[in-house]
């Protein structure tokens, strides 16, 4: 039998960190299962909540933006479908981002008592958001059948945008998770960021409307938001060419997310051994 050797030293990061993470995949599975099964305990409607919420949000948005504000959607695409597509991927991102940001503090009882690669906690919280996302995607499929709207070959790109959204939630969530350990101000800030993000992203409206204002000063700033490319791309994969999509925005998303992901993983790894001292 191979002996397991460990050296503990200040500032020394585990040599086999990623292998350790892989070894702990069962823990990841069990923590995710815990969060999923605990989620709707003592509720009457149970899991149906993950259907009811997006459905009602979609209906309200449809009413407010399409009927009251009379915003134009992409021609040839039913407005509710456009909203639901944007809402689905945005909810996935924002839930995952929120959960990741609070994952360390929410599991403080574990952080102070046992060791495991701390990255397990944000990973397991994103799994829960992903399950919710799959349910919401199922709802979208039902709605496309209702509207007799069939996707084409663009759907092959769908996984790419889903993964990109997931990476985006890590890129921003991990930094906040680390900061949240020491500064609980972050907990107050997150819902606010999510709310701003909702309006800054093409969810209730089409980016076509943004493009019509191409000369305005805020136009380039709008595209700095990496979620714009992801949401537009996601809609484009599901709804085809009729959905407005500027491929350049995805390049921007990939670059921004790549940079932030690198920084946040570095930051997380650097701080994770002292979470317990600050929590």
């Amino acid at each position, binding site marked *: 039998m191979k002996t397991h050797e*460990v050296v*503990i030293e200040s500032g020394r990061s585990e040599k086999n960190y990623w292998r350790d993470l892989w070894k702990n995949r069962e823990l990841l599975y069990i923590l995710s299962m*815990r969060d999923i099964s605990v989620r709707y305990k003592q509720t009457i409607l149970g899991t149906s909540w993950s259907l009811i919420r997006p459905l009602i949000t979609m209906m309200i948005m449809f009413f407010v933006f399409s009927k009251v504000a009379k915003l134009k959607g992409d021609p040839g695409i039913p407005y509710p479908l456009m909203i639901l597509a944007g809402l689905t991927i945005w909810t996935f991102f924002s839930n995952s981002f929120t959960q990741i940001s609070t994952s360390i503090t929410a*599991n403080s009882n574990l952080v102070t008592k*046992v*060791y495991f690669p701390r990255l397990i906690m944000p990973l397991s919280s994103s799994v829960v958001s992903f399950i919710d996302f799959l349910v919401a995607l199922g709802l979208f499929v039902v709605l496309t059948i209702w509207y007799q709207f069939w996707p084409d070959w663009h759907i092959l790109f769908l996984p790419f945008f889903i993964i990109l959204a997931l990476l985006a939630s890590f890129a921003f969530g991990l930094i906040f998770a680390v900061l949240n350990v020491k500064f609980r101000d972050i907990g107050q800030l997150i819902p606010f960021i999510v709310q701003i993000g909702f309006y800054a992203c093409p969810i209730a409206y089409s980016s076509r409307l943004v493009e019509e204002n191409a000369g305005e000063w805020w136009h380039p700033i709008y595209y700095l938001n990496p979620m714009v490319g992801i949401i537009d791309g996601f809609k484009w994969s599901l709804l085809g060419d009729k959905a407005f999509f500027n491929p350049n925005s995805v390049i921007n998303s990939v670059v921004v997310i790549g940079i932030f992901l690198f920084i946040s993983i570095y930051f997380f790894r650097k701080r994770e051994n002292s979470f317990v001292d600050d929590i």
Partner: protein
Amino acid sequence: MAVITAEDISKRYIIDHKRGKGSSSIKDALGEQIRKIFNGKKSPHQEAEHIEHEDFWALRDVNFSVEQGDRIGIVGHNGAGKSTLLKVLSKITEPTTGRIHIRGRIASLLEVGTGFHPELTGRENIFLNGAILGMTREEIRKQFDAIVDFGGIEKFLDTPVKRYSSGMYVRLGFAIAAHLDPEILIIDEVLAVGDAEFQKKSLGKMRDVSASGRTILFVSHNMTAVQALCNRTLYFERGRLIEQGETNQVVASYLSKISKTKLIREWNTPEEAPGNDLVRVKKIEILPEYVDNQIFIDVRTPFRVRFEYWNLMDKANLNLSLHMNSMTGECIFNVGTQSQSYSKGLISGECLVPGHFLNDGTYNVSMMIVKDTVTPLYNMEEGLIFDVADYRDGVAWYGKWPGYVRPQLKFHTEMMEENILND
């Protein structure tokens, strides 16, 4: 072969003392950082609300090594650094300086039922907690029946643990931990919880574990358990490892240290002594007659309580009344002297408390000076506080011995009739 080698381990915590008003967290930190970046010095405003950082060394220059199969006891007062050491060893927090080399799979049990989720059932929590402690699902499945059996919770397997009694909760937690199979096991004070019956069971389990040749590190305030389980002991005080070696010796010096300073209180002149215009206390002292060259009081040790006081009255009929109280305030016994007539001067009294009388625990002695057998002149409450350590011989049980007194009374059993089953 050394399985753990710790070299110069120190752990520093920084304690913030806030000066001036303002209680923001991120504001201070951000403000300071931004100022550093932009002008490299503190603003006068910042100076006014200065946060003072004070270093606190939870561990300081700790060196030790643990051999394969060692059962190490870790003792010391609260805040001596024991728990910090366990946290550093279990990789929960990193040391500020120093280096630890560990050979072997390590499992640490700093709490019973770590990560239990109140909404989940006993069954689900077994898998959750097992995974958190580093078991695979396959291992848990194999041990599942043994865990349920050990914890005695068969009937409640599918009940959410929030409906469990605290005893059941602890039993389930320990049962899972007891079925871990690491090469090195780290345990913090788990025996402080649970009823006597369960403590017995858990200590038995720990003996089995150690008998199988695995290495154990065990923090406890229960000296009986440490003495029974551990072959070597580390004694910490204020972050430093001040003594290590053979358990009985280290435990003895720990026990003598905690009780030493408390065995005498003395005042030199009547002016500074406690009391009133009529009587003043000069001295209260406990004089143990140690057995086996020990340097601390245990349940076998007889001791005398000596009391000296100044009588400032010309002539008075005085007697002493001694109260022995438990730390929870109950009086265990009260003895008084005969009343006697005394003139002005220094008076002493002495009471012998026999060995094999008080149970182990912490006690305080209070002394009352009474005039004419009815009027209390002065009552010295909490005159002295002292500990009685445990001692057992030929008993395999290490739970807390119940009761305030532990007298050795005549008690015997005998066989009355043999072979009643085959008649």
